[in-house]
């Protein structure tokens, strides 16, 4: 069933394909509906990761989620990177592909992090134009994720979700709503998550992310190294009811536990889906 304007399917509940689980996912049935890969982990390898990915793809849908597109950067788009990205998407026949609303470097220097975009008219025009170019090259809509942010800029001219909604509308791209990121960003900037969610253009949301974070009291960090917290589960349940069911991914990237733990988190997500 599809509830988004792109006709992209509700793939159910999936997990990230990570190296510690390579043997496990090939040796026994898994209790997940799809896998998500970090695009860059498979773009420059013909070794074991690619073999595992091709095996997994035979039995499950796969979606691509990158960290290096740097759609918000003022550096020129990296055409070689984009060529490799498309080649992987075509080879694996992914259900969809995306990245983050962020920039990762400038002046040729890569910081390998998801830096926040100032939410201004200038940045909006810039990012919309780049999304259009990339979507043209990829031949499919980009699915872009709301970030976890740890600072705001004095130059900001509008709330994050208003900027993202306009970006999606003007570039005609899809959105990945990371519910944990909504929680983290709202905690860090004293915002109400329900007000944030009120601004989401739901017909463009094709996927949700869920993850654990680290609460430092003064701020939260999106660490992907723990169980999803109750507050995020509550937001997720609301989101799922609002969308009528959206593909959901459990992210766990630090202190990665046994695969069965991820399956348990996937079960919890299923319980909250319509």
């Amino acid at each position, binding site marked *: 069933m599809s509830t988004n304007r792109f006709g992209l399917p509700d793939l159910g509940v999936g997990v990230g394909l990570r190296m510690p689980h390579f043997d496990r996912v090939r040796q026994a049935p898994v209790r997940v509906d799809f896998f998500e890969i970090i695009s860059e982990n498979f773009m420059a390898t013909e070794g074991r990761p690619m073999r595992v990915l091709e095996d997994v793809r035979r039995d499950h849908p796969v979606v691509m989620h990158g960290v290096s597109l740097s759609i918000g*950067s*003022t550096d020129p788009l990296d055409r070689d990177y984009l060529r490799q990205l498309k080649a992987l998407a075509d080879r694996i026949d992914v259900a969809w592909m995306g990245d983050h609303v962020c920039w990762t*470097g400038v002046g040729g220097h890569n910081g390998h992090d998801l*830096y926040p975009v100032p939410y201004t008219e200038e940045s909006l025009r*810039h990012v919309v134009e780049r999304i259009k170019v990339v979507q043209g090259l990829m031949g499919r809509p980009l699915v872009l994720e709301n970030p976890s942010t740890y*600072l*705001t800029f004095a*130059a900001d001219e509008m709330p994050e979700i208003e900027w993202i909604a306009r970006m999606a509308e003007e570039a005609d791209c899809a959105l990945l709503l990371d519910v944990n990121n909504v929680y983290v960003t709202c905690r860090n900037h004293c915002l109400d998550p329900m007000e944030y969610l009120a601004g989401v253009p739901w017909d463009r949301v094709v996927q949700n992310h869920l993850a654990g974070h680290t609460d430092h009291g003064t*701020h939260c960090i999106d660490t992907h190294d723990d169980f999803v917290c109750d507050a995020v589960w509550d937001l997720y349940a609301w989101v799922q009811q609002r969308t009528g069911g959206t593909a959901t991914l459990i992210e766990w990237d630090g202190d990665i536990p046994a695969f069965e733990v991820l399956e348990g988190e996937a079960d919890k997500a299923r319980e909250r889906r319509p």
Partner: protein
Amino acid sequence: MTGLEQLQRFMLRAVTHPDGVERGCAAAADEGLLPDGASALADVIPGNDRLTPEEQLGIYAFAYVDRIVEVLAGQFSATTWLLDDGDAVLRAYLADVPSRTWTLDRVGDGLPDWLAQAAGAASRGIGEDAATMRAAADIARVELAMDAVWDEPFADPVAHEVLAAIPPEEWGDLRVQPIPALRLLALSHAVTPAMNAARDEVPAELPSEEAAWMCVYRGGGSRWRFPLDREQHALFAALASGATLGEALHTTAALEGVDLERLVGELGEWFRAWFGSGLFASVG
């Protein structure tokens, strides 16, 4: 420069400065990167009642240095094992050679050369002596090669019986191609004992400075390394470059002090071991 670019350059300079956010902000201001109309950091990043602007930027600065150094430390575990303070060396490397690639896997590509030149180490007060840095450079070369073979395509290895079935008189015209997941290295230190020490997590002796050769390959889902002698390396390298076995033998025999008779006598055993390890993808 647009306002957006200026803001991005300001932030990146601040969060990647090797001496911290405060120095990074000052350096960015000195370089004219403070956005128009701003005279202080608070004019760019207001902060909030729980975190100052510097503390907010510090979250990104911490992620930059610590994350990349963690990746490098994993990739160059034997290299850093040899060093007294591998973490400090990797931080100095990152400061001198910031990443210009989209993949973290390639951030360490410049480490061997940087170590060999000991570039920046003295100026940053790193306590490693030059001999240790040069030896570490060779270990880093091996570890880079071990990473490279990991990502190479698979190829079905040829069994030794295939070679053995070919009449010896035809061997001279044979071309024997190694699998893609293989690298041959010519080093200036005997690094195997130090790398074994790192693997076994016991103290490593400083590798002796001498010519040394090594083969690194992927086999059976793991990565392996073994030392070669000068003649083995020369022969293998010639074969890998596309020479016939006869040509490779000729090249090897031309090395100073090579006993051709001994070389030919040992060839069969070398190939038996190499084929047995699955190092060749074609014979023809």
